[in-house]
């Protein structure tokens, strides 16, 4: 251990003339930050003993700083006699706050500060401190540090090189400050691989086929559970086996973005605010590699008991959903049928199904355009003949009827129609989800590129 760090520091600081901060040292040697600070100090001491001035250090001082010379409005004379009361122009009546205020303002305010100092200025800086709570070496460099901001480069390198490490595990090793209440939010929307998930058949609500895609599954989970937390760990382990750490995040992202759109609509639905909101939350978060979440979750016990969780959730929600059980069943059946369909259509239909539930439950006008998405054929029978698709499909048709009060009410109802159209029809469905997913990622990339470019060169407006 001792050899390692001397060697590492000798190479990087002396030979390559790089800047080594305690953080980069701790990451490189996989040691605790405090140990790294000690290593830096040792190296600095030894090298300077051998050859004075070969290694320069920057120190970090934390403490309370002595206040500056009085800069208050009453001027310098107010501090002349420490204990004396200042003669104010107006007598300090209890009622008048102004003189009191000035008197209070005389007291020096100590400021807790964290200061980065080059070693040349160390003694000077120490003098400005009233009391020093901590002092340690921040970084080492071969020659004096000319520009303090070059230290930022160290941190950037760390984030670049060690981005793959999970901070929730690594913090113990490196000694980063950790909030014990923090837990990682799981990414519910895994990429839809064909992972067989055995979900217990909850009574009345879910005669689900075993091979459901996790995305749709989570939809189901969201539909049932009003108790938000349970569904998350429940569906998460299902998505976990299917989503390995290395699964491409962009695959997740398009799925999540799409979910987001319908989630927003669903969040307007009355009875469904909580689970939907939670969906949009979990899909909106950055997709971090799903690591050791189950241990961190307070309801970690659910990780292996997804069935129980589902049951529990279902039980809670069973009662209020009694009256609608029937229509739900119908929807489940549709969903089942859809499972056998192609991916894209199914995904859209998956969106459609829960949207339909929302639409039927409440008359939020916002849900209308969403439920119209369910124009995708639910039970589509398609035959391809001579380059034309024919068949029957389910379409949402609008019907305007006059109410008993004389109001015109527009209702959307599912109706079957037989259609005949040219081949490109299915392709349109495919491209629609594809383009929508491309947009967020492209927009993200463009935004990042532009932000990087627009800074210094904007000054040189000539070019």
């Amino acid at each position, binding site marked *: 251990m001792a050899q390692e760090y001397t060697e590492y520091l000798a190479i990087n600081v002396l030979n390559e*003339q790089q800047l080594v901060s305690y953080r980069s040292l701790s990451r490189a040697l996989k040691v605790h930050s405090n140990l790294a600070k000690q290593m830096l100090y040792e190296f600095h001491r030894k090298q300077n003993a051998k050859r004075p001035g070969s290694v320069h250090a920057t120190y970090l001082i934390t403490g309370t700083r002595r206040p500056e010379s009085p800069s208050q409005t009453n001027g310098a004379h107010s501090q002349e006699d420490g204990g004396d009361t200042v003669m104010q122009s107006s007598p300090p009546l209890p009622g008048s706050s102004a003189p009191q205020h000035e008197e209070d303002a005389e007291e020096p305010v100590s400021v807790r500060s964290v200061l980065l100092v080059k070693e040349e200025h160390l003694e000077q800086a120490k003098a400005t401190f009233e009391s020093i709570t901590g002092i340690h070496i921040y970084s080492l460099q071969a*020659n004096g540090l*000319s*520009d303090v901001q*070059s230290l930022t480069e160290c941190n950037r390198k760390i984030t670049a090189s060690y981005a793959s490490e999970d901070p929730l595990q690594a913090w113990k090793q490196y000694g980063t400050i950790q909030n014990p209440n923090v837990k990682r939010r799981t990414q519910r929307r895994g990429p839809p691989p064909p992972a067989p998930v055995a979900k217990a058949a909850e009574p009345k609500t879910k005669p689900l086929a075993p091979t459901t895609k996790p995305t749709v599954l989570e939809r189901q989970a969201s539909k049932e559970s009003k108790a938000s937390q349970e569904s998350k760990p429940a569906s998460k382990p299902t998505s976990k086996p299917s989503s390995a750490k290395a699964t491409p995040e962009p695959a997740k992202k398009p799925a999540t973005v799409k979910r987001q759109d319908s989630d927003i609509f669903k969040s307007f639905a009355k009875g469904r605010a909580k689970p939907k909101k939670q969906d949009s939350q979990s899909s909106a978060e950055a997709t971090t590699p799903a690591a050791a979440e189950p241990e961190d979750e307070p309801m970690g016990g659910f990780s292996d008991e997804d069935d129980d969780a589902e049951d529990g959730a279902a039980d809670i929600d069973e009662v209020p959903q009694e009256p609608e059980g029937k229509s739900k069943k119908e929807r489940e059946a549709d969903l089942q049928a859809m499972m056998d369909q192609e991916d894209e259509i199914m995904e859209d239909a998956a969106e459609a199904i829960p949207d339909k539930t929302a639409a039927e439950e409440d008359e939020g006008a916002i849900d209308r355009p969403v439920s119209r998405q369910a124009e995708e054929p639910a039970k589509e029978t398609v035959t391809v003949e001579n380059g034309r698709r024919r068949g029957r499909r389910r379409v949402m048709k609008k019907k305007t009827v006059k109410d008993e009060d004389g109001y015109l009410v527009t209702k959307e109802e599912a109706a079957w129609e037989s259609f005949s159209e040219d081949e490109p029809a299915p392709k349109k469905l495919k491209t629609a989800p594809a383009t929508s997913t491309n947009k967020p990622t492209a927009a993200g990339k463009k935004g990042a590129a532009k932000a990087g470019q627009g*800074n*210094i060169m904007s*000054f*040189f407006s*000539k070019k």
Partner: protein
Amino acid sequence: MASEATTLRNIVAAFTDFLTVAIHTILYERAIYPQTSFLSARKYNFAVRQNRHPKVCGWINDAVSAVEMELLKGTVERVAIVIFTKDNKPAERFMLDVSRFPTATLADLDTPLERKSANGDNISILPKVDMEEQFRATLSRLANCGSTLRPLPEGSTFTVAIELKGVGQAPIAHPQPWMPVEPTKQDDIDGRVQKRAVPVRAVAAGEMMLECWIEEAAVSD
């Protein structure tokens, strides 16, 4: 960058960006102008210093455009940022060797460049990430160079010079942005004026190949 093919113009533009930032950094490091007149900015995802005075920026921009014009012609061998003392003696030179840039005729300035490897795959002409990383490293080295070099005497000033490849290509047409200078002979008063060269970095990213070093004139007194 993949969709848009790289032309010589792009390469030169990338280099001039870098040159601008390098000049600002050198001015900051060598304290030619008071360090308080610089503000912090970011370039290549790196913290750099930029001078705030409009005349300084204007001058630098003009100088860099003039260098760009010469670069497009393909006549430049080296670009130098020279620091003079008050007595007009060059104290230091920050050299950038650009002789390995691809050259093209005027007509071909906007033709996309292409390079193929031995087995026929396309090699990237200007790999952006790679290039940025190397620029970052060069700037970082330049920034720290201030500590290795001897402190400059008061009242030093700077200028930008180019060394051309061959004879007969000097830009002395009107308007004349450049002043022709005779190559300074070594003073043989008491032996040679020793020059010290400190390598900074070499950048090799696709077609962007340049080297950077610092030449220091020894103190002859």
